[in-house]
């Protein structure tokens, strides 16, 4: 790790370069960095030469092999999906949960189960539509269902800012649902030399993610077309549809994905992780199957938890066909290649990968 970098460096290297993912890792750990909607900024330089904010950021030096070691105790052998123990398809057994969910309802079912059985004391999850199209990360300590946290949104919310707030209040034994950049930041926090409450996060469910939209751009695009306060669900049906469907009380609106893609955050273009490679468990959609999820179990803790959940009848599972697995690997590898290309385009230097540090083997595969 490079030493001696501070909030000013973060501003220079990340914020001003449009690289911030709004994960929230740097928010609520000091009074100087704030988030509103999906916008994070250093309000005032703190004057220190070294800071947690810089170290925790998923877009400052991120050494994949070092993170592998700290999370899994060993480096990866699968370069497209990262370390994992098993991959299968899963869905929530509870049809009510499944009904509210975007796909198989696995995330909701697992978090509810973890909370109900006291395996975690609280959960940091995201309510996809908080009054309007902006999602909100929330801390829940009791029932999950009533909060309307199921479903997907395509705008990032600063989940780790909420987690920082929770750990400041002394919460430990937290479960967290996050997208890949948030999971990376969380793991950087947990393996950092600094004092942080992030070690109180005991269960990490990572979501698959291909990109997020900028709140400002996307909400301005929708304004006048859709009543933002009435949005209930946003979905991108599998190809070749090439559309985004915005469901509202007044009916569905369909937009060409080409139009929507204009609002993809620039930082998503340099993202190397589609499947939340550092989570305990990763969950995503299965292309072409509406009511099942892909479930990747990665850590021993994750395996233990899933085994219990299966035993408790929380989820159904079935094997993921080889062709689907290959397809998933293909998609993840494509994202990595694109990220590496985008980074090299930014730096205009084939060897300079900005924040990313890859092992020689990985470089060989993706450079």
């Amino acid at each position: 790790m490079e030493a001696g970098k501070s909030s000013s460096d973060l501003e220079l290297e990340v914020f001003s370069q449009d690289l911030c993912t709004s994960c929230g890792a740097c928010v609520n750990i000091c009074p100087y960095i704030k988030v509103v909607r999906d916008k994070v900024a250093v309000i005032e330089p703190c004057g220190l030469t070294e800071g947690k904010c810089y170290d925790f950021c998923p877009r400052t030096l991120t050494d994949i092999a070092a993170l592998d070691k700290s999370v899994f105790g060993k480096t990866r052998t699968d370069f497209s999906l990262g370390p994992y123990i098993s991959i299968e398809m899963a869905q929530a057994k509870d049809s009510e949960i499944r009904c509210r969910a975007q796909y198989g309802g696995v995330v909701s079912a697992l978090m509810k189960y973890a909370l109900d059985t006291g395996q975690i004391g609280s959960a940091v999850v995201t309510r996809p539509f908080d009054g309007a199209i902006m999602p909100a990360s929330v801390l829940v300590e009791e029932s999950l269902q009533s909060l309307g946290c199921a479903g997907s949104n395509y705008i990032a919310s600063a989940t780790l800012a909420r987690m920082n707030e929770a750990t400041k209040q002394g919460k430990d034994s937290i479960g967290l649902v996050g997208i890949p950049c948030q999971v990376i930041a969380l793991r950087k926090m947990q393996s950092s030399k600094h004092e942080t409450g992030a070690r109180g996060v005991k269960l990490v469910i990572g979501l698959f993610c291909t990109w997020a939209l900028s709140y400002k751009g996307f909400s301005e695009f929708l304004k006048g077309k859709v009543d933002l306060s009435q949005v209930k669900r946003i979905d991108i049906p599998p190809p070749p549809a090439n559309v985004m469907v915005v469901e509202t009380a007044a009916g569905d609106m369909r937009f060409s994905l080409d139009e929507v893609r204009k609002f993809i955050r620039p930082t998503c273009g340099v993202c190397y992780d589609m499947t939340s490679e550092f989570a305990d468990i990763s969950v995503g959609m299965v292309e072409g199957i509406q009511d099942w999820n892909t479930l990747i179990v990665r850590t021993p803790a994750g395996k233990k938890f899933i085994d219990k959940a299966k035993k408790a009848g929380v989820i159904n599972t079935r094997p993921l066909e080889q062709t689907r697995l290959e397809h998933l690997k293909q998609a993840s590898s494509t994202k990595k290649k694109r990220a590496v290309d985008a980074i090299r385009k930014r730096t205009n230097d084939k060897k300079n990968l900005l924040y990313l540090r890859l092992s020689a083997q990985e470089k060989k595969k993706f450079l």
Partner: protein
Amino acid sequence: MVTIELNQPGKTVLMMGDEAIARGAIEAGVDFCASYPGTPATEIPESLARVADRFNIYAEWSTNEIVAFEAATAASLAGLRALVAMKQNGVNVCSDFLMTVNLAGTNGGLVFVAADDPSAISSSNEQDSRSYARYADLPLLEPADFQEAKDMTKWAFEVSEKLGLPCILRSVTRLSHSRGNVKLGELPEKKRTAKFEGVYISGAFVAAQHAALHQKLEQAREDFEPSRFNFYVGPRKAKFVIVTCGSGWLYSREAVAALGLEGKVGILKIGTTWPLPEKFIIDHLKNVTEVFVVEEVDPFLEQNLKILLAEQAKTLGPIEVYGAKSGHRPPFGELNQDKVITALTSIKGLQARTRDEKYIEKAKEALTYIPPRMPTFCTGCPHRASLWAIKSALKLDGRDGFVTGDIGCYSIGAGPAGFFQLKTIHCMGAGIGLANGFGKLEKFGFNQPVIAVCGDSTFYHAAIPALINARVNNSNVLMVVLDNGGTAMTGFQPHPGSGCDALGRPAPTVEIENICKAIGVEVRVRDPFEISQAVQDIYDMLQENGPRVMVFRRRCFRIEAKEKLQKKYYVDQTKCIGDDCGCARFCSRVFNCPGIIWDQEAQRAKIDEMVCTGCGVCATLCPRGAIIVRGAAS
């Protein structure tokens, strides 16, 4: 009992200059007083309001100076005696009416007090309002001490009544706000009733009216010749004479005494500085070869005197004039005896006066007693929270947005107290006026968001036309009204939103948000102490187009703390992390409320309970929750 209402003619009392002016008005039997607060004039109407019931005076805080002046003029037109007082900037606000009421004329005595603030101790500009007298062809009186402040005010009503013109009385901060001995005069029996008669129109036969005005001014000149406020002290046949007026009189007298020049240098003190008592001056300059003009700020007397000397060259012969033009007195900044002494020393080729060594040492030591700090907001001031919220929102927005400032306590937000947020400051109302223009520059590639901040009193005073302009021209501007419930900077006088009048009696209110709604602009109201919500609101409003208004409403906390007991806070120094990452002394270094200090020994923050008002904002900002209410369970 207030000193200014004492019914003891002949008794000498200590009075502030502004009180002396108020007493002079009372002795003249003033009936009507209207004003807008402004330093250093505020205590004149305030003093009159305090005794309004006793002397049957109508006193009001008007919405702005020109309304005050017009209202006071109405009283004059109805045959009453009226006074309007304001700071120099207010004179500018009045100027439109001033340049027509001079032609239309007045009836009952109308005294227009212009209180200038040399060195801009409490102002956004330095201005010598005396030029208005020459500009508007109106009589001008300049009191030189406290007694004259009272006596001249009384006389000013007579001057006004005789000429049918407003009479301008000019004070300066040093006179208005110092105290000196004043011998009281008789309190009059007042029996005036108001009745309007006649026609007062400026605009018909203007040139004829202007000619008549010049005649009135000539009348004033004649009346001023024998005035006891013009006098000479010093040796007969002095060759060197100081010509002075206003505050220059006492400085000159002290300088002459300090240099032991009483036998050589005369002082010609002029109280009626426009129009000049020409005969009186010529009489006293007959044997003089050198003149030093001592006055504060502009060379007003100096230039008028030079014209007179040129006209009288044949009679008076060549006279060397020292003053601002010659470089012996700076035509800016407050005057003092040292400046006069230095000038006299240089003109007369005297040995420079040296200070006593001990005095210099003591003075140096005294300087160390002054805490080294920039002007700051009071403890608990809502402006600190508001400007922090604005700074945060602008930073989050990230488009190099900026704030156009206005006149009020929040003006010091241009400095560290307000995190350097205000980038323009001019006159009252200029913040929103400028923002109007910035908000229309889109087609020239301008994409910076603009926030106009404006105080509540300023909103009523000067901001409404600009807001209407923003609405009809659809200017992209976010106006933030910093509503602390009164005209705080001048001592929390009521304004149209306060719900009470100048005498403290209940009055109807005009709500800022209702005005905004009537204009048709989006308006939100928020407590700036709810800082994160305030940041989000401002951020969201910055994303919108067209004119928008946010009212940050939170009563001045000094007033709040005076009226009811507030919570006591302390820093749990075991929780405070001081200089470490995660805080780096945010409260005492950045947010910088004077109620929080840095405990050098413990290297932790500490509440200064002597000055903390208990607003609690720092407790919400402390990243460690280390700032705690005393007595509360932690």
